[in-house]
């Protein structure tokens, strides 16, 4: 039962793989390669059928391979956005363009990929900023539904889906002290709803399994509870959203109690107060809010800037996000600068780079395919004139699974070209 579902997921994932140009071998020569998994090295990146087959100084270029000369340039793996509304939002104030947030509390059956707008103007802009892949998540409610790892280039959501589902998103209730004001009542209700929903889902799962085994009559399918079954079976990671210290603690306690071990915490700078526990319990973290002001006036002015360094020092496995709000989607391209600020305030630079590449891939369960320049991985990388964590660096080209991305599709570049060439008006 459990096994067959896993197989189905695997088959689905393989169907979603984009066909690269078959038999196509390309050698990228002359650049400094930044594998992330290893120190930078001058060398050749060899790509075959959309996969990296070799990367390093001693790579021989096979006869018949196409060569792309990149002297003086730098090659980095694509930046990976760990939590975004890209594709679900166009203009946040225009309601008709917003598909990011469903109403109701139980939206476990919501799937991000099906509403991913392939021709969103935001996508080429993000790719110009070096982000070729994003974990796109729905929001709204307690159980928000499942996120999907999306290629930002393609023809429709089907062929742009790199992996789905990536994880079930749960907005853990804020934990209140038990006062009588409305907020606290709402929180208590939310906690109760969470417990009730899990109890329902378990009972439902039991009934479904019994029906499948032929030991009980069939029951009506409930899409919301059905969507929670992979979570109960441990097949789907649980992405828990919690920002406050007590809320994070409560979420971790709850997950432990309920037996959810396949866990990712999506959180903010307050996670630094729990760095020890997060390290000890080996909970991977998506750290948002590096650029937030301190939450409290007595905190050091750089407390958010420095949160990543504190997590790193404690040994927490983390990647860095930008908050992922609908407002942020348009400027997803600034993701590397969140990591850079963390580096300015104590995070080692190589860890900062890793936090928006390989660490993100690993935490999203795609460490085998993405995040570094290593043989066997997708040829999904960017070509720059310098360190992508520096704002003054320009991203000059991008390759997604061995295909060059047309960065001139970027609407902003088109407007720039058009108006840069505007003749002076007649006086």
């Amino acid at each position, binding site marked *: 039962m459990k096994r067959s579902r896993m197989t189905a997921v695997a088959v689905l994932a393989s169907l979603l793989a984009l066909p690269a140009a078959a038999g196509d071998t390309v050698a990228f020569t002359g650049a400094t390669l930044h594998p992330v998994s290893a120190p930078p090295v001058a060398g050749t990146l060899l790509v075959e059928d959309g996969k990296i087959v070799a990367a390093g100084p001693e790579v021989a270029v096979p006869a018949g391979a196409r060569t792309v000369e990149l002297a003086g340039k730098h090659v980095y793996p694509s930046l990976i956005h760990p939590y975004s*509304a890209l594709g679900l939002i166009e*203009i*946040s*104030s*225009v309601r008709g363009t917003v598909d990011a*947030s469903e109403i109701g509390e139980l939206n476990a059956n919501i799937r991000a990929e099906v509403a991913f707008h392939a021709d969103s*103007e935001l996508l080429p802009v993000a790719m110009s900023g070096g982000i070729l892949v994003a974990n796109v998540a729905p*929001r*709204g409610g307690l159980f928000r539904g499942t996120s999907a790892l999306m290629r930002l280039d393609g023809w429709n959501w089907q062929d742009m889906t790199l992996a789905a589902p990536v994880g079930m998103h749960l*907005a853990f*209730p*804020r934990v209140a002290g038990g006062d009588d004001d409305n907020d606290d009542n709402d929180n208590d209700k*939310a906690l109760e709803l969470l417990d009730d929903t899990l109890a329902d889902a378990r009972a439902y799962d039991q009934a479904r399994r019994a029906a499948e085994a032929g030991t009980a009559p069939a029951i009506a399918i409930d899409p919301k509870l059905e969507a929670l079954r992979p979570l109960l079976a441990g097949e789907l990671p649980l992405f828990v959203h919690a*920002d*406050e*210290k*007590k*809320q994070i603690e409560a979420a971790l306690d709850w997950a432990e109690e309920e037996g959810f071990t396949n866990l990712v915490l*999506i*959180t*903010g700078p*307050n996670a630094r*107060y729990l760095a020890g526990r997060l390290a000890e319990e080996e909970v991977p973290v998506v750290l*948002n*809010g590096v*650029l*937030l*002001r*301190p*939450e*409290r*006036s*007595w905190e050091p*002015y*750089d407390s958010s800037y420095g949160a990543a360094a504190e997590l790193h020092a404690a040994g927490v496995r983390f990647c860095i996000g930008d*908050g*992922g*709000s*609908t*407002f*942020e989607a*348009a*400027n997803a391209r*600034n993701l590397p*600068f969140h990591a*850079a*600020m963390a*580096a*300015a305030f104590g995070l080692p*630079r190589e860890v900062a780079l890793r936090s928006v590449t390989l660490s993100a891939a690993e935490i999203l369960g795609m460490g085998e395919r993405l995040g570094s320049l290593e043989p066997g991985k997708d040829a999904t990388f960017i070509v720059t004139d310098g360190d992508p964590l*520096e*704002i*003054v660096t320009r991203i000059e080209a991008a390759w997604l699974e061995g295909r060059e991305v047309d960065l001139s599709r970027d609407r*902003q570049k088109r*407007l*720039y070209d058009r*108006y*840069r060439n505007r003749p*002076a*008006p007649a006086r």
Partner: protein
Amino acid sequence: MSLVSRPLTCAAALLAALLGALPLAAQGDPSFWRNQPPEQPAAVVVRNATIWTSGPAGRLEGADLLVRSGRIVEVGPGLEAPTGALEIDATGKHVTPGLVDAHNHSAITGGVNEGTDIVTAEVRIADVIDSRSINLYWQLAGGLTTANLLHGSANAIGGQSAVIKLRWGGTPEELLMREAPQAIKFALGENPKQSNWNVDERRYPQTRMGVEQVIRAEFQAALDYRREWQEHRSGRSRDRVPLRRDLRLEAVVEILEGKRDVHSHSYRADEILMLMRVAEDHGFRVKCFQHVLEGYKVADELAAHGAGASTFSDWWAYKYEVIDAIPYNGALMAERGVLVSFNSDDSELARRMNLEAAKAVRYGGLSETAALELVTINPARQIGAGEWIGSLEPGKHADFVVWSGSPLSTYSIVEQTWIDGRRYFDRAHDLEYRQVVAAERAALLAKVRASKEPPPGEEGEDDEEAGAGTGEQPAEAPAEPPAEEPEPEEPQEPPAATRPAARRLP
């Protein structure tokens, strides 16, 4: 028993020691409002730095900066300093002018929008400066020294603005930069026409056509008002009853007489052109367009009119009128001769304006020094203060920043921020003082625990003006919208550290 009580006793002793030391401690606390202002050394010399003057001297390697009595005396290599001058070895470091933000809403008490009327020219930001706002300290820590505090954008003709220096610890009046000229905020487009707020309580106007007519009508009323007073004073008026003063119209008359600069929120090319033509019809020039995200489409016209353009580096797509915003806007306008700056419009972003400037190198290829000028001399000139601040030139205020590296590098941090030759921020001091605060906090918590009261949450109390959480909860996820130009769209809810900052569109 003794095992339990012993730590408590220790904590109590520590607390007593700390409480005794409190007045002294508070005096040195960098984040403690109403300190004495930092002392002003008679002379300061910063040695051997890379100095970005933002003036005609450009960027100098291995240069010194000499300051006397709060003013810059000289910038150059191997300067002779007076005896007793405070010497700062800045070898390997960079020095820039204090950063200037031409569009800022921090340190304003309560709302920044008197949004009830389409014209509110009488209200004054100078009356509501919150000099205790911790934002001032946090922005100092990012190298900001001067901010143009603007009214919101809910009205075609909004309130009067105030230029402040971030003299942390001063009273509201001490913060005011008195040299800066008087100015007023205008706004065009979706905000004054209420496209995204108060949709159930509509007021005139609801279109850009209406906005134009509101502005023209107000100028006409101001002209009539001025004439009535002139007639009254000259005795030509038939009506001998003294006229009633109208503070709203007086502010508008000042615009027409060139005594009050206009800073206008704007996005689209059409509305930018419109306001320039209305201004020209009334014999004045718009001092500066704010945001002006389609300014690149009418850059030649802006340059010909002589308006400055204070824009965002890269924000776009948060509402329909900014769908054509491009990060090349600043560079494109600068190439066509417009005086360009980058602004924050946001208390978070105002802490890292140097990195906003760096985006003009990335997008559009401005030179590094021209890019830095987007947050130094250019905004200083836009707010009419270029004579005193914005560059490191002899005679100017000694407002400067010492950086660990290039101000355009994401890896650089601010080490010191000086205003008027006084060191208002020093990272080394800040780091030291954290230990004092941590010890005090621990002692106070220990005391609470000893008294068996339920201890306050470790996270402390919610703090209204401090940043919100990642804003990830419960349903929507705004980590602090950057471009905050307040709108009365959503009523202010009571503060909660965990509640996302109310999303308001710039």
